[in-house]
Protein backbone atom coordinates (compact mmCIF):
# COMPACT_ATOMS: atom_id res chain seq x y z
CA UNK A 1 0.00 0.00 0.00
CA UNK A 2 2.29 2.71 -1.33
CA UNK A 3 1.70 6.33 -0.49
CA UNK A 4 0.25 6.93 -3.95
CA UNK A 5 -2.61 4.50 -3.36
CA UNK A 6 -3.72 6.27 -0.21
CA UNK A 7 -3.31 9.66 -1.82
CA UNK A 8 -5.40 8.68 -4.85
CA UNK A 9 -8.19 7.08 -2.82
CA UNK A 10 -8.52 10.05 -0.49
CA UNK A 11 -8.38 12.50 -3.41
CA UNK A 12 -11.09 10.56 -5.26
CA UNK A 13 -13.34 10.28 -2.27
CA UNK A 14 -12.90 14.00 -1.48
CA UNK A 15 -13.82 14.88 -5.05
CA UNK A 16 -16.94 12.69 -4.94
CA UNK A 17 -18.12 14.05 -1.59
CA UNK A 18 -17.55 17.64 -2.71
CA UNK A 19 -19.54 17.01 -5.91
CA UNK A 20 -22.37 15.38 -3.96
CA UNK A 21 -22.33 18.23 -1.47
CA UNK A 22 -22.58 20.81 -4.25
CA UNK A 23 -25.69 19.13 -5.58
CA UNK A 24 -27.37 18.34 -2.32
CA UNK A 25 -26.52 21.62 -0.44
CA UNK A 26 -29.64 23.39 0.82
CA UNK A 27 -28.50 26.96 0.20
CA UNK A 28 -27.10 27.98 -3.10
CA UNK A 29 -24.30 29.96 -1.48
CA UNK A 30 -22.95 26.80 0.12
CA UNK A 31 -23.18 24.98 -3.19
CA UNK A 32 -21.19 27.68 -4.96
CA UNK A 33 -18.45 27.75 -2.37
CA UNK A 34 -18.16 23.96 -2.32
CA UNK A 35 -17.99 24.01 -6.11
CA UNK A 36 -15.06 26.45 -6.04
CA UNK A 37 -13.22 24.19 -3.61
CA UNK A 38 -14.08 21.25 -5.84
CA UNK A 39 -12.45 23.12 -8.73
CA UNK A 40 -9.23 23.52 -6.84
CA UNK A 41 -9.10 19.89 -5.69
CA UNK A 42 -9.76 18.90 -9.29
CA UNK A 43 -6.69 20.94 -10.36
CA UNK A 44 -4.67 18.97 -7.84
CA UNK A 45 -6.03 15.71 -9.22
CA UNK A 46 -5.00 16.66 -12.74
CA UNK A 47 -1.56 17.62 -11.57
CA UNK A 48 -1.40 14.18 -9.98
CA UNK A 49 -2.35 12.64 -13.32
CA UNK A 50 0.56 14.37 -14.99
CA UNK A 51 -1.41 17.09 -16.83
CA UNK A 52 0.39 20.21 -15.70
CA UNK A 53 -1.13 22.53 -18.31
CA UNK A 54 -4.59 21.40 -17.39
CA UNK A 55 -3.99 21.84 -13.67
CA UNK A 56 -2.89 25.43 -14.29
CA UNK A 57 -5.83 26.11 -16.61
CA UNK A 58 -8.32 24.46 -14.29
CA UNK A 59 -7.10 26.44 -11.33
CA UNK A 60 -7.14 29.74 -13.23
CA UNK A 61 -10.24 29.30 -15.36
CA UNK A 62 -12.23 26.50 -13.69
CA UNK A 63 -11.90 27.61 -10.10
CA UNK A 64 -10.98 31.28 -10.41
CA UNK A 65 -13.08 32.81 -13.13
CA UNK A 66 -16.03 30.40 -12.94
CA UNK A 67 -16.06 30.99 -9.21
CA UNK A 68 -16.16 34.77 -9.73
CA UNK A 69 -18.96 34.40 -12.26
CA UNK A 70 -20.91 32.17 -9.90
CA UNK A 71 -20.52 34.57 -7.01
CA UNK A 72 -21.89 37.48 -9.03
CA UNK A 73 -24.80 35.29 -10.17
CA UNK A 74 -25.31 34.25 -6.52
CA UNK A 75 -25.57 37.90 -5.53
CA UNK A 76 -28.32 38.42 -8.08
CA UNK A 77 -29.98 35.20 -7.06
CA UNK A 78 -30.24 36.42 -3.46
CA UNK A 79 -31.45 39.91 -4.55
CA UNK A 80 -34.27 38.60 -6.73
CA UNK A 81 -35.65 36.29 -4.03
CA UNK A 82 -37.81 34.46 -6.51
CA UNK A 83 -40.82 32.48 -5.36
CA UNK A 84 -39.87 29.20 -3.68
CA UNK A 85 -39.50 26.74 -6.50
CA UNK A 86 -42.17 24.01 -6.24
CA UNK A 87 -40.58 21.06 -4.47
CA UNK A 88 -40.63 18.33 -7.11
CA UNK A 89 -42.61 15.42 -5.76
CA UNK A 90 -40.63 12.71 -4.04
CA UNK A 91 -41.68 10.18 -6.61
CA UNK A 92 -39.85 11.98 -9.43
CA UNK A 93 -36.75 12.61 -7.29
CA UNK A 94 -36.45 8.86 -6.66
CA UNK A 95 -36.80 8.28 -10.39
CA UNK A 96 -34.08 10.84 -11.09
CA UNK A 97 -31.76 9.24 -8.54
CA UNK A 98 -32.38 5.79 -9.97
CA UNK A 99 -31.76 6.97 -13.55
CA UNK A 100 -28.47 8.70 -12.75
CA UNK A 101 -27.25 5.77 -10.66
CA UNK A 102 -27.97 3.31 -13.43
CA UNK A 103 -26.25 5.50 -16.05
CA UNK A 104 -23.22 5.95 -13.84
CA UNK A 105 -23.12 2.20 -13.29
CA UNK A 106 -23.26 1.56 -17.04
CA UNK A 107 -20.50 4.16 -17.59
CA UNK A 108 -18.28 2.56 -14.98
CA UNK A 109 -19.03 -0.88 -16.41
CA UNK A 110 -18.06 0.20 -19.91
CA UNK A 111 -15.01 2.11 -18.63
CA UNK A 112 -13.93 -1.19 -17.07
CA UNK A 113 -13.42 -2.53 -20.60
CA UNK A 114 -11.06 0.29 -21.61
CA UNK A 115 -7.62 -1.19 -22.49
CA UNK A 116 -5.11 0.03 -19.97
CA UNK A 117 -2.43 -0.13 -22.64
CA UNK A 118 -4.03 1.58 -25.63
CA UNK A 119 -2.68 -0.21 -28.73
CA UNK A 120 -2.66 3.07 -30.63
CA UNK A 121 -2.82 6.74 -29.73
CA UNK A 122 -1.74 9.96 -31.37
CA UNK A 123 1.06 10.97 -28.95
CA UNK A 124 3.99 9.12 -30.70
CA UNK A 125 2.86 10.66 -33.99
CA UNK A 126 2.83 14.12 -32.39
CA UNK A 127 6.23 13.67 -30.82
CA UNK A 128 7.63 12.54 -34.14
CA UNK A 129 6.48 15.77 -35.82
CA UNK A 130 7.23 17.95 -32.81
CA UNK A 131 10.54 18.92 -34.37
CA UNK A 132 9.13 20.92 -37.24
CA UNK A 133 6.12 22.24 -35.35
CA UNK A 134 7.88 25.33 -34.09
CA UNK A 135 7.57 24.55 -30.34
CA UNK A 136 9.02 21.98 -27.98
CA UNK A 137 5.97 21.49 -25.80
CA UNK A 138 3.64 18.88 -27.39
CA UNK A 139 0.38 20.41 -25.99
CA UNK A 140 1.19 23.83 -27.41
CA UNK A 141 2.22 22.16 -30.68
CA UNK A 142 -1.12 20.34 -30.91
CA UNK A 143 -3.06 23.42 -29.91
CA UNK A 144 -1.39 25.91 -32.19
CA UNK A 145 -0.13 23.81 -35.06
CA UNK A 146 -1.47 20.31 -35.54
CA UNK A 147 -5.10 21.14 -34.60
CA UNK A 148 -4.90 24.91 -35.02
CA UNK A 149 -8.42 24.91 -36.53
CA UNK A 150 -9.91 23.65 -33.27
CA UNK A 151 -8.19 26.39 -31.35
CA UNK A 152 -9.42 29.02 -33.78
CA UNK A 153 -12.98 27.75 -33.37
CA UNK A 154 -12.49 27.70 -29.62
CA UNK A 155 -11.42 31.37 -29.67
CA UNK A 156 -14.53 32.14 -31.72
CA UNK A 157 -16.61 30.33 -29.10
CA UNK A 158 -15.12 32.58 -26.44
CA UNK A 159 -15.76 35.65 -28.58
CA UNK A 160 -19.29 34.42 -29.16
CA UNK A 161 -19.86 34.02 -25.42
CA UNK A 162 -18.90 37.65 -25.04
CA UNK A 163 -21.22 38.71 -27.89
CA UNK A 164 -24.03 36.72 -26.30
CA UNK A 165 -23.36 38.20 -22.88
CA UNK A 166 -23.39 41.67 -24.47
CA UNK A 167 -26.77 41.00 -25.98
CA UNK A 168 -28.36 40.14 -22.68
CA UNK A 169 -26.27 42.30 -20.39
CA UNK A 170 -28.23 43.31 -17.32
CA UNK A 171 -27.37 46.11 -14.88
CA UNK A 172 -24.45 45.16 -12.60
CA UNK A 173 -24.95 45.39 -8.83
CA UNK A 174 -23.27 48.51 -7.51
CA UNK A 175 -19.87 47.39 -6.29
CA UNK A 176 -19.28 47.99 -2.57
CA UNK A 177 -17.60 51.26 -1.68
CA UNK A 178 -13.85 51.38 -1.86
CA UNK A 179 -12.22 49.04 0.67
CA UNK A 180 -8.73 50.45 1.42
CA UNK A 181 -7.13 47.09 2.35
CA UNK A 182 -8.35 45.51 -0.89
CA UNK A 183 -7.15 48.38 -3.03
CA UNK A 184 -3.72 48.32 -1.37
CA UNK A 185 -3.56 44.60 -1.84
CA UNK A 186 -4.63 44.74 -5.46
CA UNK A 187 -2.09 47.50 -6.17
CA UNK A 188 0.67 45.09 -5.21
CA UNK A 189 -0.83 41.90 -6.53
CA UNK A 190 -1.79 43.05 -10.03
CA UNK A 191 1.74 43.71 -11.40
CA UNK A 192 2.84 40.36 -9.94
CA UNK A 193 -0.01 38.61 -11.69
CA UNK A 194 0.75 40.33 -15.00
CA UNK A 195 4.39 39.32 -14.65
CA UNK A 196 3.48 35.71 -13.92
CA UNK A 197 1.04 35.71 -16.81
CA UNK A 198 3.69 36.79 -19.33
CA UNK A 199 6.10 34.31 -17.82
CA UNK A 200 3.57 31.51 -18.24
CA UNK A 201 2.98 32.66 -21.80
CA UNK A 202 6.69 32.63 -22.61
CA UNK A 203 7.25 29.28 -20.95
CA UNK A 204 4.35 27.80 -22.90
CA UNK A 205 6.62 27.38 -25.90
CA UNK A 206 8.77 24.86 -24.06
CA UNK A 207 6.89 23.63 -21.01
CA UNK A 208 3.31 23.52 -19.71
CA UNK A 209 1.73 26.93 -20.00
CA UNK A 210 0.28 28.92 -22.85
CA UNK A 211 -2.15 31.44 -24.10
CA UNK A 212 -5.19 30.29 -22.17
CA UNK A 213 -3.57 30.07 -18.76
CA UNK A 214 -1.80 33.42 -19.25
CA UNK A 215 -5.01 35.01 -20.46
CA UNK A 216 -6.86 33.76 -17.40
CA UNK A 217 -4.23 35.21 -15.12
CA UNK A 218 -4.35 38.55 -16.92
CA UNK A 219 -8.15 38.51 -16.58
CA UNK A 220 -7.82 37.79 -12.86
CA UNK A 221 -5.53 40.79 -12.48
CA UNK A 222 -7.82 43.02 -14.50
CA UNK A 223 -10.92 41.89 -12.54
CA UNK A 224 -9.26 42.63 -9.21
CA UNK A 225 -8.17 46.09 -10.42
CA UNK A 226 -11.59 46.78 -11.95
CA UNK A 227 -13.42 45.78 -8.76
CA UNK A 228 -11.28 48.23 -6.83
CA UNK A 229 -12.01 50.95 -9.39
CA UNK A 230 -8.34 51.20 -10.18
CA UNK A 231 -9.07 50.43 -13.83
CA UNK A 232 -11.18 52.74 -16.05
CA UNK A 233 -14.44 51.20 -17.43
CA UNK A 234 -13.67 49.24 -20.60
CA UNK A 235 -16.48 50.46 -22.93
CA UNK A 236 -17.12 48.34 -25.95
CA UNK A 237 -17.41 51.58 -27.88
CA UNK A 238 -13.73 52.16 -27.61
CA UNK A 239 -11.97 51.00 -30.77
CA UNK A 240 -9.04 49.55 -28.85
CA UNK A 241 -11.24 47.40 -26.65
CA UNK A 242 -12.93 45.92 -29.71
CA UNK A 243 -9.60 45.52 -31.44
CA UNK A 244 -8.02 43.65 -28.55
CA UNK A 245 -11.05 41.40 -28.13
CA UNK A 246 -10.96 40.56 -31.81
CA UNK A 247 -7.16 40.40 -31.95
CA UNK A 248 -6.99 36.72 -30.97
CA UNK A 249 -9.15 35.50 -33.82
CA UNK A 250 -7.81 38.15 -36.22
CA UNK A 251 -4.22 37.12 -35.56
CA UNK A 252 -5.06 33.52 -36.23
CA UNK A 253 -6.91 34.27 -39.45
CA UNK A 254 -4.22 36.67 -40.69
CA UNK A 255 -1.51 34.12 -39.95
CA UNK A 256 -3.52 31.41 -41.68
CA UNK A 257 -4.07 33.49 -44.79
CA UNK A 258 -0.46 34.60 -44.78
CA UNK A 259 0.68 30.99 -44.63
CA UNK A 260 -1.68 30.16 -47.50
CA UNK A 261 -0.42 33.11 -49.57
CA UNK A 262 3.18 32.22 -49.02
CA UNK A 263 2.75 28.77 -50.48
CA UNK A 264 0.07 29.19 -53.12
CA UNK A 265 1.30 26.35 -55.40
CA UNK A 266 -1.48 23.91 -56.16
CA UNK A 267 -4.31 26.21 -55.08
CA UNK A 268 -4.57 29.44 -53.22
CA UNK A 269 -6.03 28.36 -49.89
CA UNK A 270 -4.81 24.77 -49.79
CA UNK A 271 -2.02 25.63 -47.32
CA UNK A 272 -4.38 27.33 -44.94
CA UNK A 273 -3.13 27.10 -41.32
CA UNK A 274 0.08 25.39 -42.46
CA UNK A 275 2.92 27.35 -40.87
CA UNK A 276 5.99 27.29 -43.11
CA UNK A 277 8.85 25.71 -41.22
CA UNK A 278 11.07 28.77 -40.89
CA UNK A 279 8.19 30.99 -39.78
CA UNK A 280 6.45 28.58 -37.40
CA UNK A 281 8.00 29.74 -34.10
CA UNK A 282 7.52 33.50 -34.49
CA UNK A 283 4.05 32.96 -35.88
CA UNK A 284 3.01 30.80 -32.94
CA UNK A 285 4.45 33.31 -30.50
CA UNK A 286 2.62 36.16 -32.22
CA UNK A 287 -0.67 34.23 -32.13
CA UNK A 288 -0.10 33.27 -28.49
CA UNK A 289 0.47 36.87 -27.52
CA UNK A 290 -2.62 38.17 -29.29
CA UNK A 291 -4.70 35.27 -27.94
CA UNK A 292 -3.56 35.96 -24.41
CA UNK A 293 -4.50 39.64 -24.60
CA UNK A 294 -7.83 38.79 -26.28
CA UNK A 295 -8.68 36.08 -23.76
CA UNK A 296 -7.67 38.32 -20.88
CA UNK A 297 -9.88 41.22 -21.98
CA UNK A 298 -12.78 38.95 -23.03
CA UNK A 299 -12.86 37.14 -19.69
CA UNK A 300 -12.64 40.47 -17.85
CA UNK A 301 -15.57 41.86 -19.77
CA UNK A 302 -17.49 38.62 -19.17
CA UNK A 303 -16.94 38.82 -15.40
CA UNK A 304 -17.25 42.54 -14.72
CA UNK A 305 -18.69 43.86 -17.95
CA UNK A 306 -21.13 46.75 -17.28
CA UNK A 307 -24.25 46.91 -19.51
CA UNK A 308 -23.53 50.46 -20.67
CA UNK A 309 -19.98 49.39 -21.17
CA UNK A 310 -20.96 46.43 -23.25
CA UNK A 311 -23.72 47.90 -25.37
CA UNK A 312 -22.26 49.69 -28.40
Amino acid at each position, binding site marked *: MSGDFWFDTILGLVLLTLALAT*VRAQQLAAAVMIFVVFGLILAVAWARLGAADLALAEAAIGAGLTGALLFSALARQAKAESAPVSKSSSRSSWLVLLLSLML*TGILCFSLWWVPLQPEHHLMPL*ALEHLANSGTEHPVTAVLLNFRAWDTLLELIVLLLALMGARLVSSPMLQTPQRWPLASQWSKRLAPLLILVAFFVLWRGATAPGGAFQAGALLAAAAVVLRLNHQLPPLHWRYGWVRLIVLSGVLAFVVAGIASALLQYQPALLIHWLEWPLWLAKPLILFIELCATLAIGLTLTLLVVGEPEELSS
Partner: protein
Amino acid sequence: MSSIVWYLWIGAGIWGIGLYGFMRGPELLRRIISLNLMGAGVFMVMVALAARTEPTDGVLHALVLTGLVVAVSATAFALALLARLLAAKP
Protein backbone atom coordinates in the same frame (compact mmCIF):
# COMPACT_ATOMS: atom_id res chain seq x y z
CA MET B 1 -2.20 0.84 -13.01
CA SER B 2 -5.42 0.34 -11.07
CA SER B 3 -5.27 4.06 -10.14
CA ILE B 4 -6.17 4.90 -13.77
CA VAL B 5 -9.33 2.83 -13.44
CA TRP B 6 -9.97 4.44 -10.06
CA TYR B 7 -9.73 7.92 -11.57
CA LEU B 8 -11.89 6.81 -14.50
CA TRP B 9 -14.54 5.70 -12.03
CA ILE B 10 -14.20 8.94 -10.08
CA GLY B 11 -14.71 10.82 -13.36
CA ALA B 12 -17.77 8.67 -14.10
CA GLY B 13 -19.04 9.31 -10.57
CA ILE B 14 -18.68 13.08 -10.94
CA TRP B 15 -20.44 12.91 -14.31
CA GLY B 16 -23.26 10.90 -12.73
CA ILE B 17 -23.62 13.33 -9.85
CA GLY B 18 -23.59 16.21 -12.31
CA LEU B 19 -26.35 14.54 -14.34
CA TYR B 20 -28.33 13.92 -11.13
CA GLY B 21 -27.92 17.56 -10.12
CA PHE B 22 -28.94 18.72 -13.60
CA MET B 23 -32.10 16.66 -13.48
CA ARG B 24 -33.03 17.40 -9.87
CA GLY B 25 -31.77 20.84 -9.02
CA PRO B 26 -34.81 23.09 -8.72
CA GLU B 27 -32.93 26.37 -9.19
CA LEU B 28 -31.41 27.19 -12.55
CA LEU B 29 -28.09 28.22 -10.99
CA ARG B 30 -27.75 24.80 -9.42
CA ARG B 31 -28.35 23.23 -12.83
CA ILE B 32 -25.59 25.36 -14.35
CA ILE B 33 -23.25 24.24 -11.58
CA SER B 34 -24.27 20.61 -12.18
CA LEU B 35 -23.47 21.10 -15.87
CA ASN B 36 -20.00 22.24 -14.88
CA LEU B 37 -19.72 19.16 -12.69
CA MET B 38 -20.67 16.95 -15.65
CA GLY B 39 -17.98 18.76 -17.69
CA ALA B 40 -15.47 18.22 -14.93
CA GLY B 41 -16.41 14.51 -14.88
CA VAL B 42 -15.87 14.17 -18.60
CA PHE B 43 -12.57 16.00 -18.44
CA MET B 44 -11.50 13.80 -15.54
CA VAL B 45 -12.20 10.71 -17.66
CA MET B 46 -10.20 12.19 -20.54
CA VAL B 47 -7.28 13.14 -18.37
CA ALA B 48 -7.29 9.68 -16.77
CA LEU B 49 -7.28 8.11 -20.24
CA ALA B 50 -4.38 10.41 -21.21
CA ALA B 51 -2.42 9.32 -18.14
CA ARG B 52 -2.33 5.65 -19.24
CA THR B 53 0.80 6.04 -21.41
CA GLU B 54 4.25 6.96 -20.13
CA PRO B 55 4.62 10.35 -21.76
CA THR B 56 1.05 11.42 -20.99
CA ASP B 57 -1.01 11.92 -24.20
CA GLY B 58 -0.48 15.58 -25.09
CA VAL B 59 -3.16 15.50 -27.82
CA LEU B 60 -5.81 14.57 -25.28
CA HIS B 61 -4.59 17.33 -22.99
CA ALA B 62 -4.99 19.83 -25.78
CA LEU B 63 -8.53 18.55 -26.38
CA VAL B 64 -9.32 18.90 -22.67
CA LEU B 65 -7.94 22.43 -22.66
CA THR B 66 -10.18 23.33 -25.60
CA GLY B 67 -13.11 21.69 -23.80
CA LEU B 68 -12.34 23.68 -20.68
CA VAL B 69 -12.35 27.01 -22.50
CA VAL B 70 -15.58 26.07 -24.28
CA ALA B 71 -17.12 25.05 -20.96
CA VAL B 72 -16.19 28.28 -19.25
CA SER B 73 -17.43 30.48 -22.09
CA ALA B 74 -20.71 28.56 -22.21
CA THR B 75 -21.09 28.92 -18.45
CA ALA B 76 -20.38 32.64 -18.67
CA PHE B 77 -23.05 33.04 -21.33
CA ALA B 78 -25.50 30.91 -19.33
CA LEU B 79 -24.94 33.00 -16.22
CA ALA B 80 -25.39 36.22 -18.19
CA LEU B 81 -28.69 34.80 -19.52
CA LEU B 82 -29.69 33.80 -15.97
CA ALA B 83 -28.85 37.29 -14.69
CA ARG B 84 -31.02 38.82 -17.41
CA LEU B 85 -33.81 36.36 -16.56
CA LEU B 86 -33.70 37.21 -12.85
CA ALA B 87 -33.46 40.93 -13.63
CA ALA B 88 -36.46 40.68 -15.98
CA LYS B 89 -38.54 38.69 -13.46
CA PRO B 90 -40.47 41.28 -11.29
